């Protein structure tokens, strides 16, 4: 009989190995899924994981890695702090939309004024929008003890309706011939989140993602607040005795993740996406949950996980055009990755022992 024995403390080796094993298992599992869809599994896996980096068109795909990775990393860094403390913000997608609407709304209101202050103000407003949207579940949780998972998630659907209303109404392009969607911010120099070096994929969002990684690392490793977050996650009771104020922690974690998600949305709408439109949000807020777990809730881990997940997005797009692989396949693939990760994680916390049948004393 196999028996599980709890480790006194989580194994460090397995904590690092688990994500790698999970990725390998997902490649195998994904290969089986692609084979069932009637595609060559080896070719599909090669296209998803290898071609974006090393094929002859890699010069085009490599910058995409940063463009798609930056929002995932920004959001996941914020989420990871809450997840560590057992505060579940599932509504990053909504905070991402509201951040984008705040930033874009400000720019569209000022159009066509040109000023160097417009873009910095958009950054502040984007963060503020996400922060305020996240404060709704935070305040309800601290004041009434309402479940933050359900409230933050419900607000995603509310935000999607707001986005639809804005792109069809208030923010619609007056010169757009009646088509839904706002003016394109890429053609508005003061508001455009342009690449810092042409063709590199590096826009301000990438810079902010890097800063977020460093700040999060320093805070978790060196600051008292980071210690309180880790303590609350590992033992809520001990944290209370140590004088941690749970309400302040809830406000901080939700506010922080909301602001970062709002920033991600604002950088996206002012740059790669460009337009307030119904199909603006593509699920980064949900994929970031997988990124946070795959990165072990560790800032540098999240950076790697975010890039890997961006790779599957790009590879998935290539596979869509060259193999006719449905776009949903990549979503299922990402979900599978999280399943495998959660399964392999057993080895981090438990030892598997071969137990002999014991005589009952």
């Amino acid at each position, binding site marked *: 009989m196999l028996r599980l024995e709890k480790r006194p403390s989580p194994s460090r080796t397995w904590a690092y190995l688990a994500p790698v094993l999970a990725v390998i298992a997902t490649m195998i599992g994904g290969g089986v899924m692609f084979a069932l869809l009637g595609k060559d599994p080896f070719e599909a896996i090669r296209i998803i994981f290898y071609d974006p980096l090393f094929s002859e068109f890699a010069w085009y795909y490599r910058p995409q890695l940063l463009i798609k990775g930056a929002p995932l990393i920004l959001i996941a860094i914020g989420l990871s702090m809450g997840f560590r403390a057992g505060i579940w913000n599932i509504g990053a997608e909504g905070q991402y939309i509201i951040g984008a609407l705040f930033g874009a709304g400000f720019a569209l209101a000022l159009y066509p004024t040109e000023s160097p202050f417009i873009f910095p103000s958009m950054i502040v407003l984007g963060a503020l929008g996400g922060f305020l949207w996240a404060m709704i579940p935070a305040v309800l949780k601290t004041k009434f003890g309402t479940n933050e998972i359900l409230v933050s998630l419900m607000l995603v659907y509310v935000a999607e309706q707001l986005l639809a209303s804005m792109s069809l109404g208030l923010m619609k392009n007056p010169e757009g011939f009646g088509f839904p969607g706002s003016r394109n911010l890429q053609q508005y120099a003061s508001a455009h989140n342009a690449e810092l070096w042409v063709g590199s994929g590096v826009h301000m969002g990438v810079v902010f993602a890097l800063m977020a990684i460093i700040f999060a690392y320093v805070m978790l490793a060196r600051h008292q607040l980071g210690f309180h977050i880790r303590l609350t996650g590992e033992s809520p009771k001990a944290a209370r005795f140590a004088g941690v104020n749970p309400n302040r922690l809830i406000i901080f974690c939700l506010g922080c993740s909301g602001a970062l998600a709002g920033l991600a949305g604002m950088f996206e709408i002012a740059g790669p996406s460009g337009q307030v439109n119904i199909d603006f949000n593509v699920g980064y807020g949900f994929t970031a949950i997988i990124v946070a777990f795959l990165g072990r809730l560790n800032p540098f881990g999240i950076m790697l996980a975010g890039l890997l997940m961006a790779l599957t997005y790009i590879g998935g797009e290539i596979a869509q055009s060259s193999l006719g692989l449905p776009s949903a396949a990549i979503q*299922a693939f990402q979900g599978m990755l999280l399943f495998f990760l959660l399964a392999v994680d057993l080895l981090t916390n438990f030892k598997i022992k071969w137990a002999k049948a014991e005589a009952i004393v």
Partner: protein
Amino acid sequence: MDLSAISPTLLVASLMVASTPILLASIGELVVEKSGVLNLGVEGMMIVGAICGFAAAVLTGSPMIGFLCAALGGAAISLIFAVLTQYFLSNQVATGLALTLFGLGLSALLGQSYVGIKPPTTYKLDLPLISDIPILGPILFSHDFTVYAALSLVAGVWWFLKYTRSGLILRAVGESHDAAHALGYKVVRVRVMSIMFGGACAGLGGAALSLVRVPQWTEGMTAGSGWIALAIVVFASWKPERILLGAYLFGGVAVLQLNLQAAGVSIPVEYLSMSPYLITIIVLVAMSANRAKSALNAPAALSRVFHASR
């Protein structure tokens, strides 16, 4: 705007149809949570059930086989959650989210060739004379069978939890898995079975959506119904009879806002479409405001990991 176009009788009749999917999903989740497991994957299981049921009904031409396959599909995908949380001892919140994300992807994948197809019509109760009684006829005697199936399921769960020995064991496992284990009950087996029952119910709920309520297949068509079902369990304070109240309340809001949209009320459509989600939040706040009471009703071992060390 013409509010007189909204007929109260038809409103009640259609709210019963509209609330059936969430009623089915939430009664299943209630059993799962009563056994001490929090499965946040309801949305994922529902949508997998929706496409399994839709595909099977289109392929065989029989809605009954469709519903059967929907229940099987929901149960099958919930088995992943059961294995991960019960045998691999994973975090239930994270695993439930993974189930939702995976289910949304998988269903879109399975449903690709079913977009824009009409499913076979589900059998509808139509008794001569009785269905023609004014007011009572349309409300009580002229629905498709899912409405009656969902209602009997709620009654069945209520009876099972309250009056049977197995129901008592299930509740014991949910209140204190250690005590139940010490008494010799198979905690893991009870929980796996509850999770699969919840999956089957969510699958049926999904099929009620894709075969009866809409009836069509579109990607992501559950649009948060699974999450609303989770909220209804909280609203119902984990009591089966109150699940009915909660589901009909939400069904009522959904139908009313659709009717208002059709009647051309001057509120923009998007703001009316928000209302079910906003009402969910308001109800959650109202329920949790009384902290002492709401904490008392929740199963004590909810979402705690069970690991028998001996």
